[in-house]
Structure formats: structure tokens, C-alpha cells
């Protein structure tokens, strides 16, 4: 089993519990780290209450990401008339669900800012999720350079701006942790970054 096969099989069997999955995870640090992060997110989500549920925009983004990847797209009987997302993007296709999961985790993190006691308990989990480096900018730009080189300067500039907006919004949240508007602005900034990743993975890209 290679990395692609393992990542495909994760949707069918959770936690890498099949024998061949376990074997691959033992030998592959990258996939092992991925599964560990997914488990952390799932564990953090299970401890949340209904009141912490993110806004409909978050769910909307996840739905769009899943639809773009084809996971909730109706099955076609005939052969696909476009190159599949998997074939075209290889392992990089995981940037889309990763972006969605990061967005979800950040949304939960932002919500929890107003609950200091929970924040203390889950700081370790959310710290890694809140770190923008979880979505690797270099990987994104590398994909754009390969698939849409003409748009590279635009992606670079917009990535710079959106990272700046995240830093600014985070600064306001740090200054006023109880400011609901500030938390929402931070959420919006992450949403924008997530959208940039979605666009880079866009099916309509050549």
C-alpha cells in the first residue's frame, strides 16, 4: 500500500486499523503524522458542545470542499470525461480536506477563546490547528506554479495579503479576547485563506 492508497482508504476505515494500513503507517512518517492530526481533530471535536458549533459558513466551506473533491458528487455511470481530481493532483488533493479541517479546527478554536477553562484543556490540540503553517504556503504555490504558472504572481500577492489579515485579526483577538466581532474577523480571515486553497485546487484549473 502506498501513500495515495492509504489516504484513499482512510475514508473507508478510520484510524488506519486495517493490517495493510498499519503496516504502511509504521513505515511512513508523513502518513502517520497525518492520521495523528486527524485523530486529534476528531478527539477535540468530540469534546465540544452544541453551543460551540461553528457558523453555517464553515459547514458550507466543508461541503464545497467535499463536492470539489467529488466525495458527495453523484456517481456517474459512464467514464469520467475529465481527468479525475485524484489523478491530476495526487497527494496534493489532500490539501482541500486538510484546508476544510483546518478551517473547522480554527473555527472551534476561535469559539473557544471565550471559554478560558476549555481553552486550557485543549490548548495543545488547537495550537497546531491554529497555526497557519498547517496549510503549507509553499506547497500551494508549488502546485500553482505547475498548474497555472501565469497566475503565480496573483496567488503570491493574495497569499501575502491574507496572511497579513490573519496576523492583524489575531492581534485584535489577543488584545480583546472577549470581542465577538474580533473573533469573527479572525474566522473570516481564515475563511479567505481556505478559499485561496480551494481555488488553487479548483477543478477548472488546467
Amino acid at each position, binding site marked *: 500500500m502506498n501513500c495515495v492508497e492509504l489516504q484513499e482508504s482512510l475514508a473507508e476505515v478510520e484510524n488506519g486499523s486495517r493490517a495493510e494500513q498499519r503496516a504502511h503507517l509504521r513505515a511512513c512518517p508523513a502518513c502517520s503524522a497525518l492520521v495523528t492530526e486527524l485523530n486529534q481533530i476528531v478527539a477535540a471535536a468530540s469534546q465540544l458542545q452544541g453551543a460551540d458549533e461553528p457558523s453555517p459558513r464553515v459547514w458550507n466551506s466543508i461541503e464545497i470542499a467535499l463536492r470539489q473533491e467529488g466525495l458527495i458528487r453523484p456517481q456517474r455511470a459512464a467514464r469520467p*470525461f475529465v481527468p479525475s481530481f485524484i489523478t491530476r493532483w495526487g497527494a496534493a488533493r489532500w490539501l482541500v480536506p486538510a484546508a476544510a479541517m483546518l478551517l473547522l479546527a480554527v473555527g472551534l478554536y476561535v469559539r473557544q477563546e471565550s471559554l478560558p477553562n476549555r481553552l486550557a484543556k485543549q490548548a495543545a490540540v488547537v495550537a497546531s490547528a491554529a497555526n497557519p503553517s498547517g496549510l503549507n504556503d509553499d506547497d500551494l504555490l508549488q502546485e500553482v506554479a505547475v498548474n497555472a504558472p501565469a497566475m503565480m504572481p496573483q496567488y503570491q500577492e*493574495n497569499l501575502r*495579503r491574507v496572511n*497579513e489579515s490573519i496576523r492583524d485579526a489575531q492581534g485584535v483577538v489577543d488584545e480583546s479576547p472577549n470581542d465577538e*466581532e474580533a473573533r469573527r474577523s479572525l474566522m473570516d480571515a481564515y475563511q479567505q485563506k481556505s478559499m*485561496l486553497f480551494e481555488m488553487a485546487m479548483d477543478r477548472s484549473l488546467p
Partner: protein
Amino acid sequence: MAVNKRAAKLVAIGVIVAGTLVVAESRKEYHFAVGPRAGVSVMNPYGSISVRPSLNNTVVVNAILHSDRVEVDNNQNGNRVDIQSHLLAGADADSGRVDYEVLVPADASVTLHSSTGSLRAEKLHGDVSLEGPGAEVNVRDISDAHVHVKTMNGAVNLDNIQNGHVEVDSLSGEVTLTGVNGPLVQVVSTSGRINYIGDFGNSGEYRLTSHSGDIEATIPEGTSADVSARSVRGEVHDDIPLQPKTHNIFPLDKGRAFAGTVGRVAVSSTVVLRSFSGKIHLRKRSEKQ
């Protein structure tokens, strides 16, 4: 005489080149019979997509292919039609370009994707979703529908959207909403300017947010709305006298924030204008506008 011969040669070469271009460009037309509330999706890496209503339950796709290095793949699955520009080996932004004109039943749900071309939809009352990194987006005369737009740096113009559920996400493109109203109208931008021209409807939620872009809302006489504006580092300007509210969730620092009610309190929408470093300006529409 020599000059005439040379001119004749140039004309002949021009005719040959033009002929070659004409041959390279081809037109395709597809027809699909669909039922009520059909779904239509067009994915086009390079080129424009324009959607208008058809006269019956038919989807008509007119495609202009700019070379033989691109094909149009089409698929109908029940009440759903998918169109995809299929780039062949060696295709680039010029040779891979396809321009689409699509007619759909007015109640169809439409999804359009293009990386670089313009996206246009008009006179529909089904949901409309338009997305593209560099696409310029124009949507007009849509009613009772969701309108979702995502762009990176393309300009977005929405005109006459009635009773819409409108969500626009743009990183750096300018967003202009004219005569747009509905239960939810939301624009989020990182650095693009946001312009709203209209009356904020009757009882909707209007939320315009830009990190560093300016926000300008121009409202006519008779508008009723609860308005709050706040810019963390930028300025806010209010040309309209607002009735102050007794309770605000954030401090109204002079020049950085304002909040209040304009018009009738009983029938009003909620308007939230937010920026980090952009300017926010609420102004009254002049008679000339």
C-alpha cells in the same frame, strides 16, 4: 509595379492567415431536454461563460472553441447537465480557450467555473454559484435565489438581486452591489473595495467586511436600517444622522465607529460594516444618482 506585387503578396498572406484562424476556431451547439429545477454546471479553464434564460425546458449550449487543442465534454444525468472544457496536450490560455453562451430554464440552478474568463448570469430565479480565481463576475436580475460568488481578484458586480441569499467572497477584487436585497447579503473581502448602492431591503441581514479595502454604502431617502460600522485602524464617516442606540456591543470611538438607526425602527434591516484598516463611508444617495 513592384510595390503593387508586394502589396498583393501581403494581402494574400493575410487572407491565408485569417483563413487559418477561422478554420482553427470552431462552434459547437448542444441541446438537452430537462425538467423543472434542473442543474447545469459549466467548468471552463480559459474563456467566458454567459448564462441567460431559455424559452422552454431546454438547455442550449453554444461553445466557441478557439483551437483544436480543446474539446467540449458534455454529460446529462437525469435532470443535471455537466459541461466541461477538456484541454488536450499542448493547450494553453489561448488555444485552450472556449467561450460559452448557455441558455437554461429560468428556474435552473447554475454553477459556473472559469479561471480567467468573465462569468455572467442574468434573469434567472434558480440558485447561482460562480467561481473563478481571476474571473470577472456579473450577475443581474436574479430573484428568490441563492447567489454565491467566489473570486480571488476578479471584479464582482451584482445588479438587481431581489430577495436573494447573497454571499460574496473575494480576496482582492472590487465588489459592487447595486439594488441587492434579501434575507442575507454578505460580502467578505481581504483587500478589495466594497460598494453597496441600495436600500438594504426590509428585514435582512447585511454584512460587508473587508480587511484593508474601503467600504462605501450609498442609501436612498426612506431607508430603514440598524447600522453599525467599525474600522479598527481606518476611519469611518457618516453623512446621515442616525438615531443613537442605547446599547452598543463595542465602544463607539469617534472616527473609528458609529452605530444607530436610520428611518423607521419597526421595519428595518441590520447592517454591519466592518474593516480593519479600510475606510467606511455611509452616505445618502443624491437625486442625480
